[in-house]
């Protein structure tokens, strides 16, 4: 159920081994002994270069666990993870750190204030990942400027501190910082949830533009509505399992799993047909049975 949808062929797929991210049979547990709880079960996900995939899940679905596991912040209890062809399944903390440092995989979290060092200027935040890689200072500064431009920010922000920026500007800096090492894959955990409409639209527009840049994006969100228009493919996480995967259009127009149908029936839309309360009621009953 979780294999790549055939419709995704227009994405820049190289070959079977060319995936930027291959997750297979992933299980994650928290706790020990009697308190051991399963957070993810049998998650299989394959992301092609340049593809934008939305992972939708609500509270407790395991979506943040998935992001953290793929970033090596939470250990998997079973299954395999390959990032840009590299099998990282057995990696220890040091190997993960080394992998993240190489900048192949990057991430953007929901709260931009907490993901940017408050004591670093925007320029320092943007150049830091490059300096760590051994890029010369001048070259790093140059790249920082060009990526700031990619997220529609002006260079006069370079010597400001994160606290002097608006929430939307900060989130755009976070996106620029994630891109500056030219990663193959960026994982965005609720990238627009904390933003107001004007900033949300700006960040979504930037993410849409990034779809043609070759970097693969994974949007993790509780809100199907906020990522539907930006993703090529959508995959739905429910109680730790991926229950449905397909092109965004297919998932939105012909949802298969009752939970996906409930999600779609619950998301407020402007022009959708008037919500059918009875149908939602029936789906809820079906899911809780």
């Amino acid at each position, binding site marked *: 159920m979780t294999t790549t949808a055939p419709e995704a062929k227009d994405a820049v797929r190289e070959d079977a081994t060319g995936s930027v991210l291959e997750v297979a049979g992933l299980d994650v547990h928290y706790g020990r002994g009697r308190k051991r709880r399963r957070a993810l079960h049998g998650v299989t996900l394959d992301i092609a270069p340049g593809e934008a995939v939305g992972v939708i899940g609500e509270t407790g679905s395991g979506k943040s666990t998935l992001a953290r596991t793929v970033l090596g912040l939470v250990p998997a209890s079973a299954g395999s993870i390959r990032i840009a062809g590299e099998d990282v399944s057995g990696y220890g903390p040091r190997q993960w750190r080394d992998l993240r440092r190489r900048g192949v995989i990057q991430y953007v979290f929901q709260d931009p204030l907490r993901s940017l060092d408050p004591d670093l200027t925007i320029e320092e935040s943007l150049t830091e990942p490059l300096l760590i890689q051994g890029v010369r200072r001048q070259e790093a500064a140059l790249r920082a400027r060009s990526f700031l431009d990619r997220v529609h920010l002006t260079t006069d922000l370079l010597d400001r501190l994160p606290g002097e920026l608006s929430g939307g500007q900060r989130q755009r800096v976070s996106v620029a910082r994630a891109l500056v090492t030219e990663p193959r894959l960026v994982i965005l955990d609720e990238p627009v949830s904390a933003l107001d409409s004007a900033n949300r*639209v700006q960040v979504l527009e930037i993410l849409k533009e990034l779809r043609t840049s070759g970097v693969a994006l994974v949007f993790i969100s*509780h809100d199907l509505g906020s990522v539907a228009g930006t993703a090529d493919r959508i995959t739905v996480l429910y109680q730790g399992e991926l229950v449905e995967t397909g092109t*965004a259009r297919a998932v*939105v127009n012909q949802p298969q799993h009752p939970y996906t149908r409930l999600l779609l029936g619950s998301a*407020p839309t*402007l*022009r959708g047909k008037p919500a059918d309360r009875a149908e939602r009621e029936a789906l809820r009953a079906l899911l809780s049975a």
Partner: protein
Amino acid sequence: MSPLTHDTLTSRPAGTAETTFDAPGTADAPDASAAGPVLALHDVRITDRVTEREIVHGVTFELTPGKAVGIVGESGSGKTLTCRAALGILPPHFEITAGRIDLAGTDIATLTPRQWTDLRGATISAVFQDPASYLNPAIKVGAQIAEVIRVKQGLKRRAARRRAVELLGAVRLRDPELVYGQYPYELSGGMLQRVLIAAAIAVEPRALIADEATTALDVTVQAEILDLLAELRERTGLALVVVSHDLAVVAHLCDEVLVMRQGEVVEQGETRAVLHDPRHDYTRLLIAEHDSYGLDTFLAPKEAS
């Protein structure tokens, strides 16, 4: 102004009505005083007395029984201040400096604290974004609702308990008896918001203000709460003011919508008209958010503008 807080507002609605919540005919047989609007705002302006800056620059709308009015705007747009003014709970040093608010036909400027206490809960009530902060964490949720009923309706302990369980059922909590005996920490956000709605409707207000009441909830739970509000409106004629940053939430539920920005109503009208023919750039932005990036991308053929 009376020293009432949110907490007293939601957990101790005032009132003397003793009819049951489901009383037949509540919706279609309004008494004489119910003929006019439950709530009417006329060019309401609110000023911060410390900075002497006007924060809300004139809000006008009428809420008749059974009607639903939506207010959309970002945080800081003045939507919450407007609601608090209508509830008589403006924060200290904020003041209504022009215009008037009529609650069930009475100019609120003339109300004594005692009269306010009678109106809150019985005529107008509210639920807010973070339900957990309006409940005492150390007291079972059912007891908190029963206390409201006991104090405000003068019911005996057992009758109040029965009525509280009834209300928990009316907000579609699956096992009202069980929930009655639970503490706030044992309930999910969606369940807590139902408990707060149960408390808010305990004395059958004629209008309910839902200020970002579903913002912190998952989408499926949000839909449950919105369904509940729509159902209460149909079943009891409850008039609603729905405040949200999301135009779609408001569009879903409301007949009329006000779009606020920086204290100003930049657009106002029948929901369908506003969606179809937005006049202000900001409204267009709110619509574009859904049409260009949201589910609406797939749902509707793009209309030529």
